[in-house]
């Protein structure tokens, strides 16, 4: 594989090249005190010199004291909102004479380049692909939005205290497929070491006329995700985890976590693989037309499991159990992988600071004899 050198001063050209090719560049950008993924226009929009502090229930965007561009860990948004959009009209039905006319909502054509995707982000996207355009079910709207996407990964050098990608095998090094993968080096001349992973990646590198990276730079770059991995302290033991959780569905820990859980839905909304939606119908006041909309929903919402007669999961205990065991256990049977990529978002953005790794550890361990102290 060829490896190239991109000086920091020329990062803007990569963005400009993508934009000239008609791509919306979706990348990290600071907004309202957090680093979010959104459309950017130039490298000036990137979180230059910004990092973050994260812990259960707490996030702070902080100045790093250097000019690093990718010196933060994942924030509250994930790339899923670009393809699996939070709210959309599916179709409109109009009365025409005695008949009904169905008018599907077109999906706007949009070419998207994801710049700065971490290893966990990419695995999460593949997970969503499997769910929404895999073998069992195909969401044409998702597939259309996902049809022309350039992936520019960043090998992670700055995990947060919430991250546990090393346990889930999703990072800090971003495994392919990607078109380009960057490693940021800030010591000495600020630069990126660029790997190409596709014809598109090579085209971009040629268009920019990048020089090959030197041996020393390649070595420096290879060390970045290794050092990142060493700095990660959060762990989840995944050995037989699915089975261990499935055997412990009546574990008393579920009642305990339900005392702390707000059923606020934040964990599912920030999770890059959660895909649940609700469908809502709306009518014109005079009854001449109706519309169907789809919105993000959550297994933590009481109404989510409502069927005739009542909700299937009325207690928060049952809802937390659904979330934990779906992510870490039944997802394997359904989709052939874990539903969790270890990004830590649900830990940081839970207002109650509930930690999925801690809950899974408790529920998945052999039950202690009931203590009588």
């Amino acid at each position, binding site marked *: 594989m060829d490896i190239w050198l991109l000086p920091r001063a020329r990062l803007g050209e990569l963005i400009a090249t993508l934009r000239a090719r008609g791509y919306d560049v979706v990348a990290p950008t600071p907004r309202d005190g957090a680093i979010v993924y959104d459309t950017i226009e130039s490298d000036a929009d990137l979180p230059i010199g910004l990092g973050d502090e994260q812990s259960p229930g707490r996030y702070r965007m902080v100045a790093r004291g250097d000019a690093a561009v990718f010196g933060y860990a994942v924030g509250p948004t994930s790339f899923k909102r670009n393809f699996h959009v939070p709210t959309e009209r599916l179709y409109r039905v109009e009365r025409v004479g005695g008949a009904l006319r169905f008018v599907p909502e077109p999906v706007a054509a949009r070419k998207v380049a994801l710049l700065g995707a971490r290893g966990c982000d990419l695995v999460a996207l593949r997970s969503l692909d499997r769910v929404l355009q895999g073998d069992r079910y195909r969401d044409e709207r998702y597939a259309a939005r996902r049809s022309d996407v350039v992936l520019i990964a960043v090998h992670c050098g700055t995990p947060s205290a919430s991250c546990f990608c090393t346990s889930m095998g999703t990072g800090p090094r971003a495994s392919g497929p990607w078109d380009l993968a960057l490693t940021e080096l800030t010591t000495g001349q600020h630069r990126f070491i660029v790997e190409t992973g596709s014809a598109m990646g090579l085209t971009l590198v040629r268009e920019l006329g990048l020089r090959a990276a030197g041996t020393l730079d390649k070595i420096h770059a290879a060390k970045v995700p290794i050092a990142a991995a060493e700095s990660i302290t959060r762990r989840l033991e995944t050995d037989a985890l699915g089975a261990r959780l499935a055997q412990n569905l009546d574990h008393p820990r579920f009642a305990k976590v339900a005392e702390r859980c707000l059923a606020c839905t934040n964990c599912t909304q920030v999770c890059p693989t959660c895909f649940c939606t609700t469908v809502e119908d709306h009518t014109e006041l*005079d009854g001449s037309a109706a519309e169907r909309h789809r919105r993000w929903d959550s297994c933590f919402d009481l109404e989510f499991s409502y069927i005739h007669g009542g909700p299937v999961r009325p207690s928060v205990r049952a809802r937390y159990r659904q979330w934990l065991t779906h992510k870490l256990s039944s997802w394997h049977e359904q989709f052939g992988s874990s539903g969790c990529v270890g990004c830590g978002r649900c830990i940081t953005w839970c207002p109650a600071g509930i930690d999925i790794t801690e809950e899974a550890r408790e529920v998945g361990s052999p039950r202690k004899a009931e203590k009588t102290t």
Partner: protein
Amino acid sequence: MKAKKPKLAVFKLASCDGCQLSLLDCEDELLAVAGAVEIAYFLEATSRIVKGPYDLTLVEGSITTEHDAERLRLIRKQSKKLITIGACATAGGIQALRNFADVAEYARVVYARPDTLKTLATSTPVAAHVAVDYELRGCPVDKRQLLEVLNAFLNGRPPRIGSHSVCLDCKRKGTVCVMVAHGTPCLGPVTHSGCGALCPSYTRGCFGCFGPSASAHPAALRPALTQLGKTEAEVARLYATFNAAAPAFAAEHQSLAKRKEPTT
């Protein structure tokens, strides 16, 4: 098409009129509503009064006097569908703070002749007195939701209104959480959706105007609020506002009030 338009009535009990104003505030859409119904009783909008029965009745306000309780029973008798609008009608409103205090004492402090006053010791929601077909939350109600409820009832379908937390709306919108990212105390995690997550999108914490969400669990929010520097008394005050008597909020500020009391 229907020969006769459904008759709409809007009644007011103990309240500030803000919710009815939301209907008048609908401007553009109000004309469409006025076209779809016959406005039979709506004193805020017109002094023309058409006698009942009414097809659709909106009730604003809470019950604080025996006289209003009697009026409400008559309103119910004349209404095919009765919808309550706002925090007063659905939870007793801010005036329900009296439920946790001594009304006689209040009256003595405020009025020169408290003996001329005829008031109940409590402020209670409409549903505590008569059957209600739908309760729309908010202080005041959200005009889009009000239109949605009217639309739904006129078209014989369920209103498209969730009972989830404000957080779900924040996340759908892409609003950065003010609590986690800024350390701003926020009642969003326990508050019923309806405003479209208005305050957090202006980097303010949620005030709980729409009352408790379907799964509201204020005790679980207490550690987060106290970690952000709120004393327990301040946490109690956060809940003792527009929806002070809504069961989930009342339980929280009352349980905190009990903890404050010195044990003698």
